[in-house]
């Protein structure tokens, strides 16, 4: 188990190093001069040069890369070109919205998908299965921004249970903040839940056909007991894979939902920074998201090994 963990950890560090190089290189070739953008069209050439020097844009690429990486390691993400505030503070503010939103959506999605998938698998081919599968089909097909607008229309405008948008802030209290994240979390969670339920169902159906499930029945376990005690854990591997991918998506991919609900999240930050050529923010947020994805994958890898003893031994 220790060897396995160390190996995964090494692969995590290598992935991070490669990702940082790629992100830096891509941002470098992107057109647009941040200094020119900040000073406007009529800027003097010597003012531009001074600003570039101040921002460190006149240094060599290697120097800038090393400065960027070593800064990040120490928690210093640089200063935003646009707002002249430390990027780390901006990210921290936004992360307080995006991370809870992603976790909230993930929890909802799991809570919906697991029972739905298990129910559908245990009723294979019967009405219940067909109903759940049709519902998930719909969930996958409906665009989440449209669904988000419908949620606003029904629950915010007609029923007035929730606010139509904006974020209350955690200083207003846990429940107030959670309430303002509820509609966005539902909008994010439903399509994910639909996908996850389908994966859960097919993974369980695969497991139900295995010989050891027959052994479980021959032991005297009922269908439901066999499914719970022997089926679920074996079906968990493909489900964990999808769950990991979904978390990464939810953290970064909420841009549209954040726009619909006017949430000050990471997605909106990166979108606004790209429009403003605030390259240092774009770089840092992208790197942070990559870091999150890689860490989630690492966690999923460890979860595999906990679930399946065969993986603990193999290499």
């Amino acid at each position, binding site marked *: 188990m220790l060897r396995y963990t160390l190996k995964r950890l090494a692969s995590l560090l290598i992935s991070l190093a490669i990702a940082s190089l790629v992100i830096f290189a891509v941002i470098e070739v992107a057109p647009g001069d941040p200094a020119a953008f900040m000073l406007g069209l009529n800027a003097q050439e010597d003012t531009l040069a001074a600003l570039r020097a101040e921002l460190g844009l006149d240094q060599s690429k290697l120097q800038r890369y090393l400065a960027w990486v070593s800064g990040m390691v120490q928690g210093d993400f640089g200063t935003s070109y646009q707002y002249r505030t430390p990027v780390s503070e901006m990210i921290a503010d936004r992360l307080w919205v995006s991370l809870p939103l992603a976790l909230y959506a993930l929890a909802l999605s799991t809570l919906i998908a697991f029972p739905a998938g298990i129910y559908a698998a245990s009723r294979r081919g019967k009405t219940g299965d067909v109903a759940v599968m049709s519902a998930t089909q719909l969930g996958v097909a409906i665009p989440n921004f449209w669904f988000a607008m419908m949620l606003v229309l029904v629950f915010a405008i007609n029923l007035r249970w929730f606010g139509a948008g904006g974020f209350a802030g955690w200083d207003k209290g846990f429940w107030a903040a959670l309430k303002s994240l509820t509609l966005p979390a539902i909008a994010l969670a439903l399509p994910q839940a639909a996908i996850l339920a389908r994966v859960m169902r097919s993974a369980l159906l695969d497991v139900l056909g295995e010989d*050891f499930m027959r*052994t*479980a*029945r*021959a*032991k005297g*376990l009922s269908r439901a007991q066999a499914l719970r005690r022997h089926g679920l854990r074996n079906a968990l591997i493909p489900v964990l894979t999808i769950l990991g991918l979904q978390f990464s998506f939810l953290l970064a991919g909420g841009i549209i939902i954040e726009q619909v609900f006017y949430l000050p999240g990471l997605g909106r930050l990166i979108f606004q920074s790209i429009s403003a050529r605030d390259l240092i923010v774009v770089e840092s947020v992208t790197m942070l998201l990559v870091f999150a994805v890689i860490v989630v994958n690492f966690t999923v890898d460890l979860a595999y090994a906990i679930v399946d*003893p*065969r993986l603990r031994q193999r*290499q």
Partner: protein
Amino acid sequence: MSLLSIQSLSLNISGAPILDDVSLDLEAGEIVAITGESGSGKSMTAFSIMQLLPDEAELCGAVHVSGQDVTQLPEATLCTLRGNAISMVFQEPMTALNPVQTIGAQVAETVHLHRPDLNAKTESVRALTRVGLPPDQVSHNKYPHQLSGGQRQRVVIAIAIACGPALLIADEPTTALDVTTQAQILDLLRQLVRENGMGLLMITHDLAVVAEMADRIIVMNRGQVVEAGQTAPLLAAPQHPYTRALLTASSHNVTLPETGTNGPLLQVNGVVRDYVLPRTKLFQTPGHFRAVDHVSFDIARGERVGLVGESGCGKSTLTRAILGLEPIQGGQITLGGQPVIGGLNIRQRMQVVFQDPYGSFNPRHRVARLITEPFHLSDTPQSERDARVGETLTAVGLSPEDAGKYPHQFSGGQRQRLAIARALITRPELVIFDEAVSALDVSVRAQILDLIADLCAQYHLTYLFISHDLNVVRTVTDRVLVMQSGRIVEAGQTAQVLSSPQHPYTQKLLDAAPVLPPPQGEIDAQRPLV
């Protein structure tokens, strides 16, 4: 009252008749074997007793276990019987256990389920010790993948006997195991029956196993019981034509045509194949596992050589090395003087027939395309290829019209004929049969063996026949090599090696292999049906 009594059991699954008017009895302490070929309904009889049938099954008739008709019991009551009064052991020990639970936990679960008054852990240790896995030898915290096939089958048996069932059903319990392991598992089952006074219903296609184990035999064919009786008299004088056919096919012998051998074709010289083992410590030199250890032998043109040994002995690795698919760390393999590694032209001079007639064909290709695949290596013109398709299909006992069909339109035996056609179509100098008849029913196996003998006469085949079945090797080879732990421990004329084995391992293999009692004289066989 019989322990098990099945009366006029008929079974349909989705409208297809599976069992037709099956009746049988079994007393406590008795071993009854149901035998027959695939599709005879023997496994479904077992699942009917367990009431573990697919949802679409329609059952009529009665199955009394200790006086209770299980077909009439509600599911909740059946759950209290399964694993408790009636237990079952399955064919595939490799997949019959949950891979993510320790073996101790899997045995304890049964006890916990049926005997909550007992300490599940203590009972689990007791059951595993009884089947020959005491905790000081095999930790009960191990997972199934850490055990061998025989050990896993012992765990499955431990699960089945943990609650002291009155009736044990064993569905092909040793089919997936090596002969020596098979002998141990059969011994264990016999001992459990003797000591516990259980009834054992054994399902097996292997008549030799039946002959050694069973008190009584029930022969099934197409869902019907065709013959039943005490083992010895039934095997000595079978009454039903199907039973006779089955017995004849089980001990089927072919006569290989005499072909002179001229000059060595395949030369295997001091071959070594090492696998690097994963390191257990960071800066340790990695260890090696020697799968093939300085193996040398020759096969002359026209010679038919057998290779026997148990699983893990290196047979498959050696085969792959001969085919040039496996790098070797020492020695040399040459075919007609040319090394087998490097160059595709050497590959078309060898062809191979695999065990599984279902898995070795792409289901979306037609026969003509499937069997001409070996031509991709050569520049044979299309017209000649087409001519060869018809000719080869005829040679393996199919018709040229079959070229347009898909593999699913053929039976298992016909598919193995196709596999042989695919191997022969390029007229290879060497054919390798890798467990080529092991997955086939006895009657089909007899036909394929006849076909191989015919083809020997027609094409002067040179082949290497790899099998774990000594009876088959005895009849289709001139010479035999016995392999153990990567080494050839004995080699010689087949008849001589198998009748007076010199090496202890060969002797052990032969001792472990169950044998059918020799058939009584011709007079008996021709006696009119009573």
